[in-house]
């Protein structure tokens, strides 16, 4: 069995080298297919990351009147923390707010002088709320507006951004849904194109397949070298795609980071380079073997 396997590998590799033109064409088709699949996966990852980053930026702040006691604000915080839709509630005291304000405006004489003239601490204590989902903010606001501490509230900043957040939610939903449709569509197209190309490649070998049959080769011994040829083509195609993606990410990464600094696509690529290569080889091999099997079935079926 091992000897037969060795012969199949040797024969497949020989076929691959001796039909170089055809091998290059198959590598090209497979590379395009794998490039589309990998790009779609990267696109999906980046969309999810961008969505995550933007969602992370959405929050809800409640500002309390300056005369409200700290204990009451903390009571309100504990009450809010019980709501299942809320991920976290952060308390920012008046002193902390002042401290942060001073740091933010350090070196700005106008602001510093104005603050001194006012005397005391004019800033309000606040609760910063992060919801588990951006769609929950609306219901959280409704809860706050009916809460026992509603009269202590000076301002809820979410209401001001409501339209922007609603719009953003709609866009994010659309991008994700479109992403799924694009992935399914392009994956289907790529698989179809490579399947037909492999069928054509096998068609060009139909005479050889017939000769092999007439010489008395068992079906698996005929099929084996073609599967090996396909595997070699997939390996080369995956290498080509990885190099192309690397170059693409090197170009894209700094440009993307200038828009969204939280996303480091180059780092993601580096961390997942092996996984992506394995994904490509496995996916390519499955497509190739399936297509080869179907394409050869016709010629092997005939007596």
């Amino acid at each position, binding site marked *: 069995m091992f*000897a*037969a396997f060795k*012969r199949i590998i040797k024969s497949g590799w*020989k*076929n691959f080298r*001796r*039909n170089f033109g055809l091998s290059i064409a198959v590598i090209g088709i497979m590379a395009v297919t794998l490039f589309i699949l990998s790009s779609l996966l990267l696109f999906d990852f980046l969309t999810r990351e961008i969505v995550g980053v933007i969602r992370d930026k959405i929050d809800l702040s409640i500002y309390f009147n300056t005369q409200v006691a700290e204990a009451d604000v903390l009571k309100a915080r504990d009450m809010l923390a019980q709501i299942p839709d809320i991920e976290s509630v952060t308390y920012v005291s008046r002193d902390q707010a002042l401290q942060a304000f001073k740091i933010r405006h350090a070196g700005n004489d106008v602001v510093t002088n104005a603050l001194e003239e006012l005397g005391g601490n004019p800033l309000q204590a606040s609760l910063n709320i992060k919801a588990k989902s951006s769609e929950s903010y609306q219901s959280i606001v409704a809860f706050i507006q009916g809460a026992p501490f509603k009269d202590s509230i000076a301002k809820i900043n979410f209401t001001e951004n409501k339209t922007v957040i609603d719009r953003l939610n709609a866009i994010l939903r659309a991008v994700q849904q479109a992403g799924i449709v694009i992935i399914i569509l392009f994956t289907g197209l790529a698989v179809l194109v490579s399947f037909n190309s492999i069928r054509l490649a096998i068609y060009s070998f139909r005479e*050889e397949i*017939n*000769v*092999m*049959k*007439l*010489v*008395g*080769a*068992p*079906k698996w*011994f005929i099929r084996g070298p073609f599967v090996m040829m396909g595997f070699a083509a997939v390996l080369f195609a995956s290498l080509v795609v990885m190099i192309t993606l690397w170059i693409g990410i090197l170009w894209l990464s700094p440009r993307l980071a200038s828009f969204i600094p939280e996303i480091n696509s180059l780092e993601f690529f580096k961390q997942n380079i092996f996984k992506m290569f394995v994904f490509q080889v496995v996916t390519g091999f499955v497509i190739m073997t399936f297509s080869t099997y179907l394409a050869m079935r016709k010629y092997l079926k005939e*007596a």
Partner: protein
Amino acid sequence: MKIISFEGVSKIYNSHSIALDNVTLAIEQGEFVSLAGKSGAGKSTLLKLLIAEERPTKGKVLFENKDVHRLPAGELPKLRRQIGMVFQDYKLLPDRTAYENVAYAMEVAGIEDQYVKRDVPQVLELVGLSNRTKNFPHELSGGEKQRVAIARALAQRPDMIVADEPTGNLDPLNTFEIVKLLLKINELGTTVLLATHNKEIVDSLERRVVILDQGKLVRDEEKGKYLIT
């Protein structure tokens, strides 16, 4: 001992195309039989039925007492290895050298590498191609290609060699070289069935001649001549 029997075999493609009409024929182990007839007489169809490339409409084809059309699917390659086929158009693998074409026939039979390395040069020497082992089919003449095809058939140590118009594409000199080679193979004990429409070859052999005409077996003579009445 009978190696092949055709028992009342007919092959009908449609009512206007009857390739074989009730042919009954037996060939003994070690015989050299010429299957003669004009083009379209049904010679190739008969050979295709023998290697189960086609199925008969009626009748049975037995090889070593086994009905070749009732063999399990997995047994068909084995049958084809027992019958070494030689074709008019050589049917060599174009991207393999002469050596590799012959070796392939042994590899499919699962013969170990050491025997392949030992036997392939010997068989190629037998057919006079020791100096062409590394050449690809497109680098060989018609006669040389046919010798490679015969070497490939021999390498499997078949019980029988079946040659379908092996000289059809060759000049007279190469034609007689190939026929001489088939005779030599037969002298070494292998049964040979040679299908040809070449009268000169049939007459010169002075062996058993079976003549087909319009799908019917019209003559079967020991040491016969190519005659159609």
